[in-house]
């Protein structure tokens, strides 16, 4: 019954129940700038989700490479908050240990680890972390890095929030409370 439980979880999101009204019109996939790079476009992904094919859904790269442009969301004739569902799928995947060998996932993790540490993002530090998991991207970015450096657009010194320890306590409390909230380990992760 796992597939049904997962679908129910998705439906719990505000507007999530709209997914049941999907008429498979394909406006979302047709509008999606990242669709050419996706295993399945949003339309097919929702068909699979409604059909209970959650293994396939989570294995697909679709929701990870969504660019959050919200074209799908503003155009969906059923008002389905597609982008928000993509976010939910990412969280559900992570909560279930489906974090795939997907570079976008590494990127988000690198971003999060940096902000968790400082309260603010340092692009340089984030890239350092990201490139540890995706080392082949380093070569691609090397010359850009040098150009930015030459223009004074690289910063290596981070200016954190004043009280990092207190900031971390806030996040820790949020994590603790979030564990019982929707889409996050509600099924025991």
């Amino acid at each position, binding site marked *: 019954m796992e597939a049904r439980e997962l679908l129910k979880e998705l439906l719990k999101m*505000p507007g999530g129940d709209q997914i049941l009204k999907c008429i498979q019109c394909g406006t979302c996939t047709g509008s999606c*700038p*990242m669709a*050419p*790079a996706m295993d399945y476009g949003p339309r097919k992904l929702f068909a699979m989700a409604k059909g209970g094919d959650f293994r396939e859904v989570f294995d697909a790269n679709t929701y990870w*490479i969504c*660019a*959050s*442009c*919200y*074209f799908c*969301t*503003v155009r969906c004739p059923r008002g389905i*908050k597609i*982008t928000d569902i993509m*976010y939910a799928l*990412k*969280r559900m995947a*992570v909560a279930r240990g489906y974090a795939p060998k*997907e*570079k*976008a*996932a*590494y*990127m*988000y993790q690198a*971003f*999060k680890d940096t*902000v968790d540490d400082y*309260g*603010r*993002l*340092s*692009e340089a530090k984030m*890239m350092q972390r*990201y490139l540890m998991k*995706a080392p082949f991207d380093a070569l691609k970015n090397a010359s*850009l890095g040098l*150009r*930015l450096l030459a*223009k004074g*657009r690289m*910063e290596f010194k981070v200016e954190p*929030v*004043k*009280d990092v320890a*207190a*900031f971390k*306590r*806030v*996040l820790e*409390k*949020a*994590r603790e*409370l*979030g564990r019982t*909230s*929707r*889409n*996050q380990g509600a099924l025991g992760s």
Partner: protein
Amino acid sequence: MNAVFYPGCTLRTAAGYQESIEAVLEALELSLPWVEDWNCCGATAYFSLDELVALVLPARVMAIAEGMGADTVVTPCNACYATLRKARAVLADEPELKDNVNKALAEEGKRYWGKVGVEHLLDYFLEPGIRETWISRIRQPLTSLSVAPYYGCQYSRPQTDGEDHPERPQALDTFLEFLGTRVVDFTAKTYCCGAAQMVAHEEACLPLVRRILSDASRKGAQAIVAICPLCQFNLEAPQGKLGVGNVPVVYFTQLLGLAIGMDRKVLGLKKLLVPFKVAV
């Protein structure tokens, strides 16, 4: 309006955005104090990993602004703008989530009331009362310049509360018309550049950037005007390997500075990767 400024994490490495904002605000004698001890809004990353934390981050910024007595948070970054207003909308609709957010913020003695509004810097400059300060100071209308106004995605999407048209917004067009420029009919004005996916999936994003750049240049634009650090970066960084001609991507505040007669040097124009050589 009692506004405070939320810079966001990418402002300081942006190509002259911070310089031009500060120069212009000073020249116009407009006071926009920064949100004290501001933090990262979390952008797309945190919503992808943990929803409650993703709400706490923008709520913390807004809570600090409220504590400063502000009624509006003004931000120059689309992601910060979208994230803050998304959090504001979600927390207004879901008291239980707002409660949890406040339990977390209480660890730092902070509290989010939900009273502060969120405004993009572009709209701030167009506010009645503010806009007169610079319109009257235009010394050099940029009449010889044709521009393509690039809004990016998250200025007008998602729709949470009275934003501009989701696909054909007008605010930047209007702003640029006030500066005297010729604004081209830019179809790709809210087409996605790939945003953060440029890091992990460059090959999928380059065609998106190419599409935006070629629309701008085919329409005769001599410059693209950006309102967000990541948009500006994604549009200028890959130029040279896309097979379309180079088009400088400048910030709207840099053009504002030029129009009110400020020196190029103080507007950070030399930080652009694709130089803005157009005489104005």
